[in-house]
């Protein structure tokens, strides 16, 4: 049976109008084959047409050879969460061919390299064989580059089929290759060849097409790790010590890329920063804490396994009251877990990190712009509270392409907290001790090395200490110190960002979340509203929790806590904080390594609400 005969199936009649700017493309390739360039080119050229998009890379923990998928969701309503349906699938990998074919939404389109000789078992989808090898052979490209350029062929064919203009592709390629003429030209020519082949040979039967819009004006397309790096630089980061780990590596690489451009002293050309690749995470955090103790804005970036290694030092920094910022770009744990998949599984661990009674303020960015904003705010909080601050991002933010607003310059000056320089010591007329609470707010005054006042020094330690930092085992001193640290931690409420709240008096259902689930929740709330289920929404942006969170919970019959982990970690923290409201909280936690979808949340909430209405 030829593909054409199959496509005459009556199930394929979908109203084409409904599918303009409303579909997902999934590209299945082999890791290391250069498909990232092709996929980003598609994504950027659609964004360039003014149409909302989001690109997610579902890649293996491997450099070359394993299957990888890239999904581009095109959505005229602006929904950017992962979509569960794959309307258009491009199959370039024989190994996953049948699975990819099976994934195509009924009535969807299946573009595949025609050299893959596997019988296609479906009759309910549009089939588009692509003569990849022939087009390559007929092009005049160097043979050693052909494998890499093969993936440009589906770009050209999809562009022609969906209505992406060639100049749009060219603009995307020029951005990707930073204007370097040779690669732009080589890739572009391959796209043009494929585009022309499609013009002459491809008979369009499916309803999917693109039509220019105006809604991406003033937006940028970027990723969370780049945003975090830039935010940190505008927060004045001076010292970064890090160790490579997926998915946090690109954060440190963005710092390495941008710092020399932004932070050289204009007159001398010398650096106002240092970035060190440490030998491991144990040293990465140790260096950052040394620098933070000595008065620098210091940070490290890592993911779950690295954070496990850093735990002991973070406990010391908590206890010795050293400001330092740690970015945890979460991947799936426990253990090595799924290095290239996303999760929100480090919330409890980060918050209570370390042995003994330890509590760390957390910042929880919920979009790319907050990755930037919390990049600089984290230093202000760490220095004002004199504590480690952990910022929990995740792989979905960190490594995927998102539409974002232009980054906004910090709207307040840097807050360095209580620091005493040489002359300040004298002003305190002998009353200073590193851990003496002079102001009664549990935050003490700190000094740092290089201070030449002979009375400024102290000996920092992880052992029991008195107000002057001297060793003590005195029971009352120990008790009072731990109580002060608890009170000090709570002072963070003065500076942490308030939750984002969307509230209407007449709704009795609350949805609570943090981090990267917001796009799925926003879409789900629209779905629920269409079914007559109105919901309010609160996104937690920091721990310690602030008052408005308890207020929100108390105003609802039920609050669904949505998160991407197994145990409902945010839910647990909420019931510890608000035990009297525990009966109003319901945990809807789910983790499989993939970003949350609206559909999944809907399917968790609707049965519960239907039961409630019985």
């Amino acid at each position: 049976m030829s593909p054409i005969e199959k496509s005459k199936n009556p199930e394929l009649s979908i109203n084409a109008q409904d599918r303009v700017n409303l579909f997902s493309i999934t590209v299945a390739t082999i890791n290391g084959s250069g498909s990232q360039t092709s996929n980003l080119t598609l994504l950027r050229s659609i964004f360039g047409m003014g149409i909302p998009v989001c690109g997610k890379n579902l890649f293996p923990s491997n450099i070359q050879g394993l299957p990888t998928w890239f999904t581009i969701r095109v959505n005229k309503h602006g929904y950017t969460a992962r979509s569960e349906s794959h309307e258009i699938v491009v199959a370039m990998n024989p190994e996953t061919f049948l699975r990819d074919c099976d994934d195509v939404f009924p009535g969807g389109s299946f573009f595949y390299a025609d050299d893959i000789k596997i019988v296609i078992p479906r009759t309910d989808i549009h089939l588009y064989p692509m003569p990849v090898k022939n087009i390559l052979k007929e092009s005049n490209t160097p043979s050693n580059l052909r494998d890499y350029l093969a993936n440009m062929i589906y770009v050209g064919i999809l562009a022609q089929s969906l209505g992406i203009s060639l100049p749009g592709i060219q603009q995307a390629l020029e951005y990707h290759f930073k204007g370097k003429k040779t690669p732009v030209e080589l890739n572009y020519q391959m796209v043009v060849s494929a585009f022309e082949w499609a013009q002459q040979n491809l008979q369009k039967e499916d309803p999917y097409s693109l039509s220019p819009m105006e809604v991406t004006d003033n937006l940028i397309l970027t990723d969370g790790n780049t945003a975090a790096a830039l935010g940190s630089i505008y927060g004045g980061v001076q010292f970064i010590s890090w160790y490579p780990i997926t998915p946090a590596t690109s954060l440190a690489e963005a710092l390495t890329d941008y710092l020399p451009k932004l932070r050289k002293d204009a007159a001398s050309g010398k650096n106002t920063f240092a970035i060190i690749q440490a030998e491991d995470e144990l040293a990465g955090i140790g260096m950052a804490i040394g620098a933070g103790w000595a008065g620098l804005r210091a940070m490290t970036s890592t993911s779950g396994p690295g954070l496990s290694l850093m735990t002991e030092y973070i406990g010391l920094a908590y206890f010795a009251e050293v400001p330092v910022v740690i970015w945890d770009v979460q991947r799936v744990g426990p253990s090595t877990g799924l290095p290239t998949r996303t999760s929100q599984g480090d919330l409890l661990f980060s918050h209570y990190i370390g042995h003994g009674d330890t509590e760390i303020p957390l910042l929880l960015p919920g979009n790319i712009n907050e990755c930037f904003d919390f990049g600089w705010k984290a230093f202000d909080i760490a220095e004002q509270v004199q504590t480690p601050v952990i910022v929990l991002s995740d792989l979905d933010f960190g490594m995927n392409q998102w539409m974002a607003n232009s980054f906004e310059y910090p709207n307040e000056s840097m807050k360095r907290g209580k620091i005493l320089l040489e002359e300040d010591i004298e002003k305190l007329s002998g009353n200073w001790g590193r851990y003496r609470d002079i102001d009664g707010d549990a935050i003490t005054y700190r000094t740092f090395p290089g201070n030449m006042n002979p009375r400024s020094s102290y000996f920092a330690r992880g052992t029991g200490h008195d107000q002057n930092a001297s060793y003590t085992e005195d029971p009352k001193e120990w008790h009072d110190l731990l109580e002060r640290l608890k009170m000090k931690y709570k002072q963070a409420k003065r500076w942490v960002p308030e939750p984002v709240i969307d509230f209407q008096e007449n709704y009795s259902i609350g949805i609570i979340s943090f981090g990267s689930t917001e796009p799925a929740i926003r879409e789900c709330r629209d779905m629920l509203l269409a079914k007559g289920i109105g919901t309010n929404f609160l996104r937690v942006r920091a721990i310690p929790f602030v008052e408005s969170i308890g207020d929100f919970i108390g105003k609802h019959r039920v609050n669904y806590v949505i998160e991407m982990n197994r145990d409902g970690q945010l839910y647990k923290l909420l019931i510890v904080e608000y035990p009297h409201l525990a009966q109003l909280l319901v945990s809807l936690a789910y983790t499989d390594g993939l970003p949350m979808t609206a559909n999944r949340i809907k399917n968790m909430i609707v049965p519960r609400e239907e039961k409630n209405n019985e």
Partner: protein
Amino acid sequence: MNDMQLSPTSRSKINRIGLTKADYRGNPSTLCQGCGHNSISSQIIAACYELDLSPESIVKFSGIGCSSKSPFYFLNRAFGFNGLHGRMPSLATGALFADHNLKGIAVSGDGDTASIGIGQFKHLIRRNLSLVYIVENNGVYGLTKGQFSATADVGLTLKSHGTNPYMPVDIAWEALLGHATFVARSFAGDPKQVKELLKAALSHNGIAVLDIISPCVTFNNQDTATHSYAWGRNHEVALHELAFVPPAEEIVVDYQEGEDKEVVLHDGSSLVLKKLDRDYNPTDRIAAMRLLEEANACNCLITGLIYISTDQPSMIELYNLVEKPLNRLGEAELRPVKATLSEINGQMFQR
């Protein structure tokens, strides 16, 4: 009485920067009476005093163990940080970046350096951080009451732990192999040599590893153990008689011409090595390796400056930092101006 309490006469003397020896003092030691570590602390005080170093220009670091408590017993006017077991090198690395004018003195032990800390020790060395790194080496875990450390002699018998079946880690060897730019070994019972080596180390621009055999008077002081006083005294073979000459002083050599070797350090000071019984050149790395191997073979404790290289940049020099200490920079220097962010936004992919 601990070793740091000073006599009334030494109190009255002042050095070139107007400080008395008491200004270099620490808190009273809580280590065991007669512990070699206390003797080393005294020599650190003496060396800093005699070199006219301002205590505020020094930062002290340590890990965990008996040795790591000792920075509390010297230089009270210097900042200090007692870090994690074996991971003080990373702490020191970060802290010293804050102000490139500061000099670090780190005190570690054989457990802290040769066991949990061997990784950070080797990486510290290869980066050539300007830090005096003292290992107070007694071959035993004192603070947990007498277990074998990784530097314990093979065949050593301890009361509750039987006989050590493993070869020891040789700290000087590890330092040399890791491209340390200053490697010395000494014996806590030889205060004069310890002091001269400390002075040279403090003037060295880079990592200075001092492996100081410092007997544990409580848990490892059997006369046959290489980390005991009796063994050290009987088997010590000094490479040179050392004389450290600060840059401000005229070099006076009180021995025969042709018998001394002068090593000039980065600040213009020098270390004069008086030849004893052999012609040894501490700038020859291969010779240093041979020396250590021969010492092991003949069951000798070779002390003195084993290796020095003065022509390598220290870690912080590689980072092209601004002249002003990083920890004195303000918002104007640290937050790029607004226009730069508009430029960056413009570089992101847009329609």
